[in-house]
């Protein structure tokens, strides 16, 4: 990314106009990223909000990455989802007051449910990946579930490309390819 592009991303956290442009460009992508991983529309709304809050926090630290802001955004979104899964696994606590869900009305819930339903098959596949070691799963998710290239996934995860390739190979070896790859590529093309 060119320096002006980097500066534009860095200003997201303090420039409402810059943030608005970024948000409108990526909100649908983020919502779909979340909907591929969670089936509850309320939680999906919470997590979408948290991803953008994290973007606001982290923007000043943006230093460019292979694939540009998109891979950076995917890295953040993945961390938010991973943190949510760790919370759920650790304490199964009941969710309390949450910003994202407060913003939902009945129509929004219906739209989110439609989006979530459309991604059910991919989400089931995503659940299958949970048996893989974390590092391998992360690469396979981003490449197969989210459609990133291996180089973009490596950038999103802040690992070397060769490491990403090795992990992807291992992950694919560990899974039966037919159940995973075909489903995903159909979604990626949609």
């Amino acid at each position, binding site marked *: 990314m060119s320096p002006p592009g980097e500066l534009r991303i860095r200003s997201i956290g303090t420039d409402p106009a810059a943030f608005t442009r970024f948000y409108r460009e990526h909100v649908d992508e983020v919502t779909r990223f979340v909907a591929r991983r969670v089936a509850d529309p309320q939680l999906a709304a919470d997590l979408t909000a948290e991803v953008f809050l994290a973007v606001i926090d982290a923007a000043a630290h943006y230093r460019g990455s292979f694939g540009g802001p998109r891979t950076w955004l995917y890295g953040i979104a993945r961390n938010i989802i991973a*943190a949510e899964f760790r919370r759920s696994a650790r304490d199964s606590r009941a969710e309390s007051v949450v910003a994202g869900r407060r913003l939902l009305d009945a129509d929004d819930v219906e739209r989110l449910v439609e989006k979530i339903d459309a991604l059910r098959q991919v989400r089931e596949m995503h659940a299958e990946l949970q048996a893989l070691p974390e590092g391998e799963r992360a690469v396979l998710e981003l490449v197969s579930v989210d459609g990133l290239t291996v180089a973009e996934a490596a950038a999103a995860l802040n690992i070397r490309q060769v490491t990403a390739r090795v992990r992807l190979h291992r992950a694919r070896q560990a899974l039966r390819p037919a159940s995973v790859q075909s489903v995903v590529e159909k979604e990626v093309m949609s």
Partner: protein
Amino acid sequence: MTVSKVRPPLGGFERRLEAELVKVVTRRATVPQGPPWRAAMRRPVVQVSVAAGAAAAAAAAVTGLTLGSPAAPAGAGPGTAAGPVHIRTAAFTVDSYSDGTIHVTWDKSRYSQDREGLQQALRAAGFPVLIKEGVFCKGPQDNGHLDPSGVGPGVGEVMKAEQRADGTVVFVFTPSAMPVGEELFIGYLSSSQLAVTYGHPGSVERLVPTGVPLACTTQAPPPGSARPSSKPGVPARQG
């Protein structure tokens, strides 16, 4: 997922979320320091906060050192620290960020004096770690390989050193990159073991499995295989 060339129109939720987030950005632009502007948007993380508070209190109890305010340190790097864990002692600082990373700074002359406090703080922030001094552990299947700076395979993906603009070094820990069933082991050299680093404070880092007995020894790693502590203005080697 593909990037749509034609963006769909924003729905009601997306418009309302945009409005709320723009308020956050606007407030942040006018109040650049401290996390209170996040309070209205963040989900409460009561249990984590309690754990963080307990860890901070424990650290203070162990060390007798002071704890700072929950606000982010000035010039902390990635915007404002807004995660639930912010711990200050005279030996180290630990701040968790909403992007999932944990930023740690430490005083190289003091950090090994409060290894239990640092261990508690990192664990409270969600990073699995085991810190010892003068003892070096590895998993039963680990061949013991360390690179020349004393770092084992995989460590660089969960812990990196970054240099700030002011020349200080911040260590960035990424819990989500930690392989399931493993934790980071940090072994500080004791004062009697500093020959391997020619007298400088140093440490060994490697990933070890959890839930199984580790093979530990008090024998220092051979010269050239322990990481000298980062010097002010000089980042430690990125594993």
